[in-house]
């Protein structure tokens, strides 16, 4: 075990920190610390411009292999990249779904044609993606999707019909990856396909959903005879579940170190507030602040373990617990923030419903324990895959 980074890695740190300091200025200065969780609806156009700026510097898709146009950074340097990115307060990434989910899926499962058609737009920060998984009747039980994909022999295209829900940033995206049923008679995870669908077409309607924060970052997406070219299915009809699940394996947690740096920024704000308003003298608040600090430190050690572990992609125990751990930690931080604000927590910045950062943190972090597998689903997964306990009963 060793904790220090090599001199080359530290030099790399200086390089990225320098680039950010030089470029996060002028029109981009207003984006500092913006666009993160709870703030994702803010400055979309400006943040898209920032994505193009990043791309010019070669700072998008830093973990992708060089062969497909990525920067091919080592795990260590990716860690450093994400840490410095968050430390500089650079804005929440508009491109994270394309870079972190769609791209890696295509790299692993896509055809050559799909790669050359879709990867360049992600790399250049000009095309954005959303994730069309959840449906009204398919939440935790994702395999219960009802959206249908029918191959129309006449036009030689797939026709998609159905409804997706909770689709983050659908209103800002060029494309959506969708799981839909290719075999109408099939049930559960059999008979699904994985489709790459263009959003700007008559068969696709996006309707924003107002969230607990009063803002809208996610949407309902309706497909009414939406078209998808024959070559825009990833893998074969029936492979959809495999492709969708493969995607989960790509999240090895490198970007989570950047997320933690953003958490650190939030915690710093909470600590400062407690010192300023006197809450830091309350023994219970002191305990909770210390607990938050301890929890975040350990989150970092967890990730370092996770990243140092076997590169064979095998599921490690520390990786299994990761989501449950950070989501719960973050939600607790939100509660701590408003408890430190005390009665001020109820007073809005402006009518009708303008939240300050900590109020927004409090509300938005309620979603952390829901999306990407709820805490309960995470516990099922840990018990079943980590401890070999029996699977949940399913009606036959």
């Amino acid at each position, binding site marked *: *075990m*060793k*904790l*220090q*980074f*090599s001199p080359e*890695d530290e030099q790399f740190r200086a390089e990225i920190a320098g680039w950010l300091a030089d470029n996060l200025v002028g029109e981009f200065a207003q984006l500092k610390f913006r666009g993160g969780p709870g703030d994702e609806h803010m400055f979309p156009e400006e943040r898209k411009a920032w994505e193009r700026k990043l791309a010019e510097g070669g700072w998008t898709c830093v973990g992708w292999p060089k062969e497909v146009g990525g920067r091919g950074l080592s795990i*260590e340097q990716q*860690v450093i990249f994400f840490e410095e990115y968050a430390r500089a307060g650079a804005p929440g990434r508009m491109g994270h779904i394309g870079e972190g989910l769609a791209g890696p899926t295509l790299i692993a499962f896509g055809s050559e044609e799909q790669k050359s058609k879709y990867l360049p737009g992600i790399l250049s920060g000009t095309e954005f993606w959303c994730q069309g998984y959840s449906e009204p009747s398919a939440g935790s039980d994702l395999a219960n999707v009802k959206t249908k994909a029918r191959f129309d022999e006449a036009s030689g295209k797939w026709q998609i019909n159905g409804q997706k829900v909770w689709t983050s940033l659908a209103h800002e995206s060029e494309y959506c990856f969708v799981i839909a049923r290719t075999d109408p008679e099939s049930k559960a995870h059999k008979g699904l396909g994985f489709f790459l669908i263009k959003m700007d077409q008559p068969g696709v309607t996006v309707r924003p959903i107002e969230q607990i924060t009063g803002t809208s970052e996610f949407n309902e997406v309706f497909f009414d005879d939406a078209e998808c070219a024959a070559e825009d299915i990833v893998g074969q009809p029936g492979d959809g579940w495999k492709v969708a699940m493969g995607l989960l394996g790509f999240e090895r947690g490198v970007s989570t170190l950047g997320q933690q740096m953003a958490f650190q920024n939030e915690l710093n704000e909470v*600590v400062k507030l*407690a*010192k300023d308003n006197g809450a*830091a003298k309350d*023994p219970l608040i*002191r*305990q909770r*602040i*210390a*607990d938050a*600090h*301890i929890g975040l*430190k*350990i989150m970092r*050690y*967890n990730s*370092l*373990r996770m*990243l*140092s*572990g076997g590169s064979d992609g095998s599921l490690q*125990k*520390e990786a*299994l*617990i990761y989501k*449950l*751990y950070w989501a719960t930690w973050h939600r607790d931080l939100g509660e701590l923030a408003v408890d430190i604000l005390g009665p001020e927590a109820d007073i809005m910045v402006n009518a009708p419903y303008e939240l300050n950062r900590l109020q927004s943190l409090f509300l938005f972090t309620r979603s952390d324990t829901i999306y990407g597998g709820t805490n*309960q689903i*995470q*516990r*099922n997964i*840990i*018990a*079943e895959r*980590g*401890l*070999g*306990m*029996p699977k*949940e*009963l399913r009606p036959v």
Partner: protein
Amino acid sequence: MDFAFTEEQQMIRDTAAAFLKASSSSAAVRAAMVSDKGFDPALWQSICADMYWQALHIPEQYGGMGLGYVELVAVLEQMGRYLLCAPYMSSVAMATNALLVAGTDAQKALYLPQIIEGKIASLAFNSASRDWDACAVSVTYRRDGNDFILNGNYRYVLDGDNADVMVFAARDEGSVGENGISLFVCPTDLNGIERAALPTMDQTRRQATITVTNLRLDESTVMGDVGKADKHLNKILDLATIALAAEQAGGMQEVLDMSVEYSKSRSQFGRTIAGFQAIKHKAADMMLRGEVARSAVYYAACIADEALNDGPLANELSEAASIAKSHCSEAYFKNAGEALQIHGGVGFTWEYDVHLYFKRAKASEHFLGGSGYHRERVAKMLLD
């Protein structure tokens, strides 16, 4: 940066696990814990002669193996897992660390080889205080020529009644807080040392009181700076705290394994209780707490190495120790409590081992400071 065990470290851990699984079985633990000394002298001798565990992190110049704290916690984790009854925490994590941190060359050359050979050593500093740093010291010393005369009463001394060698912390008469602290090392057969075992709820770890009455120690026994050894003592205690947290992490793993295994074998309502979500979710949370504990302990062990070798991260020691101990204390007890619940009625019996862990968890939580104590230490760093 590589935050994973090396192959050699894995081997040390696996060897420890295999050895302890065989030698510190439930029957062995139960026999040792009610024996006179509270441990099995033959096993202790084997640990030193066959496994060299007392020598692990002692530098080679004193006959040790010269390995690091990561190797040490790898072994301690397994000791906690198999509930080893032995004066290891006292001899290695407390007394050896004291010698490494504050001992003179002569003291190290004299005592470290004895510890390596299986002599028992411990550290006495606390006299029924809820503090676990230099402020806990209330035994006093006064100068008499070149000698020091110690008076007072120590409590919670691990293996104090069995120890051959003691490190004593005492304060200059009239001093308060962190001021006036000195450390001494001496054999236990001197006049003026009276020792008595304390019966403990956790029978797997022995504690004692030591009363020193006009104990006369000469200058050769002084460790570190006279009257200014608080920093040494605090460092020793931080190192011991990390060792204890490693044991706690190991115990957490074992109560999880026991519970999962039991839940898979016990049927109610026509299915194994492992299938009930209320049980699965308890187990999942236990695993989370156990993995988190390991991350905290391994990190702290890396920092302990830095502290023992004056590395660049040495100043993180107190924080890393408090992070590990504050997490592990509540987490181990929580896991032990959940284990008892998952076992139902048999968890409440003397026959099943759950209670041994349950009691060890509570005793370990309090010793060297519980979660609240360590969180307040962190809060001070952050807020004051």
